[in-house]
Each structure stands twice: as C-alpha cells, then as structure tokens.
C-alpha cells in the first residue's frame, strides 16, 4: 500500500508541476493572495522542483524520495488551509488552471498523501523502480494502476471541470 501511495503521489506531483510550468499564472495569483512570493518565474522554478521531486521519488530507492514527497504534500495542505482563510481566494491553481476551488478535499487528500509517504519512508516500502526490476510484468501492472490512481486523484482534486464543480 505504501509503495502505491508513493507512486501515485509522485505521478500526481509530476503532472501538477508540469502543468504549472506551462501555466503558472493561476498559482501565482493564489500565492499572491496569501502574501507569499508570487512571481510567475518563481512559480515555474518551484513547479520544476516539484517535477524533479516526483521523478526522484519514482527513480531512486530509499527514504529520501518519500520524505520529500511528504514535505511537498504537507506544504500544499498548509497552503490550501491558508488560502481558504482568504475571502479573495477564487482558485488554488494547483494544476495550472483557473476555477480550481481550494476545498477541504484538497486538504484531506494532501494530508493523506503526506502521511502515506511518511509511512512509506519509515517502513522502507519498495520503490517503483525496485518493483519494476524485481518482476517486470507485475511492475508494469503496478505502474499502470498507479497512473490510473493519479489520474483519478487529479479528477478528485479538480484538475478537470468534473472536479471543480464540487
């Protein structure tokens, strides 16, 4: 379970980071609302780091990747809590689009992923690459199911009009 949480978290972080590298303005606006540095170039750099953390967690075995993921998702949860306190906050821009509501669901999912990644780090859960090397067909099945999980998590968090409706 912990290995799956790490892989889903890493894939989701890569997608969200890449989306913000392409379109940093909604996230930049959201950061500005809570008084954090919000220049689009800074957002692009931070989003590039998100992609880097996601790739690192997927490719490198050991506890560092899951810990970095846990810190990232913990920071996102705190950011969403701060954003929800601001009356001007219309969108969180997590996936580089307008209209992504900073909902309680964001806080719950981000916190759950952060806790899951911490558990993975503590219990020395197998890495994605380790699973692929150990048993290739099973590893590929694992990766495909995790990719579906990341896509569904994106829907749940409002990466599409489906999620942003709620």
């Amino acid at each position, binding site marked *: *379970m*912990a*290995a*799956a*949480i790490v*892989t*889903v978290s890493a894939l989701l972080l890569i997608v969200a980071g890449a989306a913000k590298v392409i379109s940093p303005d909604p996230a930049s606006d959201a950061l500005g609302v809570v008084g954090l540095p919000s220049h689009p170039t800074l957002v692009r750099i931070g989003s590039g780091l998100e992609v880097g953390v996601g790739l690192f967690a997927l490719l490198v075995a050991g506890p560092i990747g899951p810990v970095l993921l846990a810190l990232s998702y913990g920071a996102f949860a705190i950011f969403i809590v701060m954003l929800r306190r601001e009356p001007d906050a219309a969108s969180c821009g997590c996936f580089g689009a307008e209209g992504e509501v900073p909902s309680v669901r964001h806080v719950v999912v981000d916190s759950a992923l952060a806790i899951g990644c911490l558990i993975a780090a503590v219990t020395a*859960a*197998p890495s994605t690459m380790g*699973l692929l090397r150990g048993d290739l067909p*099973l590893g590929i*099945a*694992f990766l495909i*199911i*995790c990719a*579906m*999980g990341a896509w*569904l*998590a994106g*829907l*749940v968090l409002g990466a599409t009009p*489906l*999620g942003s*409706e*709620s």
Partner: protein
Amino acid sequence: MTSVAGAVVIAVVLLAVVVVDVLRIHGRILRRLHERDPIEDPSVSLANREIS
C-alpha cells in the same frame, strides 16, 4: 503482489469518489432543468381536469 493490491485499493477508493461526484453533478443538472422547465405531474393534471 501486495503493492499491486495496494494500488488497486487506492484506485477503487478514488474511483468511488469520482462516481459520487458524477452522480451529484448529474442530480444538480436534473434539478436545474426541472426548475427551468417543470414537468407537469400527470396525476395533478388529471385531478384539475376533473374539478373543472
């Protein structure tokens, strides 16, 4: 195998949330359509006809 089972559990839980979302949005659309163009209840319409 345990990792694959874990991934399946996560995907199923997230799928359930998405299905609930779809049903909620579907209900909301139906409600809006009904508010815009209320469907006449046939039993009420028949009762009105008998009174008149």
